[in-house]
């Protein structure tokens, strides 16, 4: 296997592992149009979301997510579909500020017809697809990889198979100079002091502890005590003895590397190293946060299996147990269950995950990409405030 990376260089020095043309509706009413345009195009992709431009209590978070997602280095160009609000303009301005160069804005009120909007968008999208296909990958440094670490549908084996094996791969990449980002604040509850102890300086350590406390306070506000009941009775029957052990099992996706920094939801890591990002446990919202934070490849470990994928980031699925891998081979890229069966060691599976990340970074399609799984969901801290569209 080649241990060299080949990627798409952007004007501002960032690297893309894909060369997507993204059709991005900035109002939920244009979501179906965006899908239609992408489906009839020569290879553009689209996402849909439920935000209709109302003045949401999470407005800043939503605008930031969409700006970041549009400017992800995996995107060659973006076709924005808008309905003409100030918020939509601020998303586009934000994307430009974050590095988006190639884009076209198509406004429904200016064009005056949905049919014409779609046909205009199709022409533009196809033009971008031709340009994107003509751009060549060139040899890239290890820092071109910005890996997102995710787990969903965990089982009793997650903490001893897929997660620590992914940690082996993550550590190797960080050692080489890549970036790796751990998310899911819910999952590290109880292990935050252990991650803080690995921080490169005390300030970073304090920030991760503060971030988890903030999350805990927000849960307590809702009247749920998540820490008191951990590990659960089922966890104890499965062999987990302490909350730290359970959270370490999830946090081990990030191996043992020093913690370089802490990121807010959707914030970009600016230097290589291992980071923690404050994301919700909901897989698809977390993927949106990773996309907004300019992560360009994701490894997703799962015990129950999931078809989840992203329109812009290749997502490599790793099973924690072999029966699940055998049951849905069209959804899962790699099996780590061999560790629990004593067939392979953690290091061997970690090396397989590492090799797969490099191959996927270099263009090999993941099963989620081949299946066309393009999930997206906006993350909100608060309940949606219904407002009039202006």
């Amino acid at each position, binding site marked *: 296997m080649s241990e060299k990376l080949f990627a798409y260089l952007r004007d501002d020095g960032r690297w893309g592992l894909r060369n997507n043309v993204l059709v991005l509706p900035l109002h939920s009413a244009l979501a179906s149009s965006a899908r239609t345009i992408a489906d009839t195009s020569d290879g553009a992709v689209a996402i849909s979301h439920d935000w209709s431009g109302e003045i949401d209590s999470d407005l800043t978070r939503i605008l930031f997510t969409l700006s970041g997602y549009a400017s992800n280095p995996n995107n060659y160009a973006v076709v924005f579909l808008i309905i003409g609000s100030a918020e939509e303009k601020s998303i586009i301005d934000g994307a430009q500020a974050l590095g988006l160069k190639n884009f076209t804005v198509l406004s429904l009120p200016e064009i005056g017809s949905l049919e014409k909007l779609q046909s205009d968008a199709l022409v533009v999208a196809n033009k971008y697809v031709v340009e994107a296909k003509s751009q060549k990958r060139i040899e890239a440094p290890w820092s071109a990889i910005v890996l997102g670490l995710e787990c969903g549908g965990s089982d009793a084996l997650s903490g001893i198979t897929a997660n620590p094996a992914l940690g082996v791969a993550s550590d190797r990449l960080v050692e080489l100079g890549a970036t790796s980002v751990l998310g899911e604040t819910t999952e590290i509850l109880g292990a935050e002091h252990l991650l803080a102890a690995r921080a490169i300086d005390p300030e970073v350590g304090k920030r991760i502890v503060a971030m988890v406390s903030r999350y805990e306070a927000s849960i307590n506000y809702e009247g749920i005590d998540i820490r008191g009941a951990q590990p659960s009775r089922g966890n104890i029957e499965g*062999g987990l*003895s302490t*909350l*730290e052990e359970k959270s*370490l099992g999830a946090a081990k996706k990030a191996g*043992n590397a020093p913690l370089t920094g802490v990121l807010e939801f959707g914030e970009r890591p600016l230097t290589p190293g291992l980071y923690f990002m404050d994301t919700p446990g909901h897989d698809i919202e977390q993927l949106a946060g990773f996309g907004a934070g300019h992560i360009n490849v994701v490894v997703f470990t799962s015990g129950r299996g999931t078809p989840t994928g992203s329109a812009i980031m290749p997502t490599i699925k790793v099973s924690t147990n072999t029966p699940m891998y055998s049951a849905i081979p069209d959804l899962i890229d790699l099996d780590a269950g061999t560790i*629990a069966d004593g*067939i392979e060691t953690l290091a061997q599976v970690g090396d397989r995950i590492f090799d797969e990340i490099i191959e996927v970074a270099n263009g090999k399609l993941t099963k989620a990409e081949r299946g066309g799984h393009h999930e997206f969901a906006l993350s909100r801290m608060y309940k949606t405030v219904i407002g009039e569209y202006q």
Partner: protein
Amino acid sequence: MRKILILDSRDNIAVCLVDLEIGDTVEQDDISIKVLNRIPRGHKIATQVISKNDGVIKYGERMGHAVAPIAIGEHVHVHNILGDRLSSAQS
């Protein structure tokens, strides 16, 4: 076929990959452990002597501490260890 999984060389416990019975012997790589209790698959076995109040190390990190002395080959679980964070709340 391996019977236990050591997640990190610094660990003083291993995870059982099969149900272990009293008197079983685990011989793997350069270790040999006589099993002292019945230990279900997925549960932990001590690979080193752990004194009372010593840290229990898994993944190379401290996941809690012993509340009783633990011998090599003994089942390590909620009856003889406690998390560091919640000990005050639980006692």
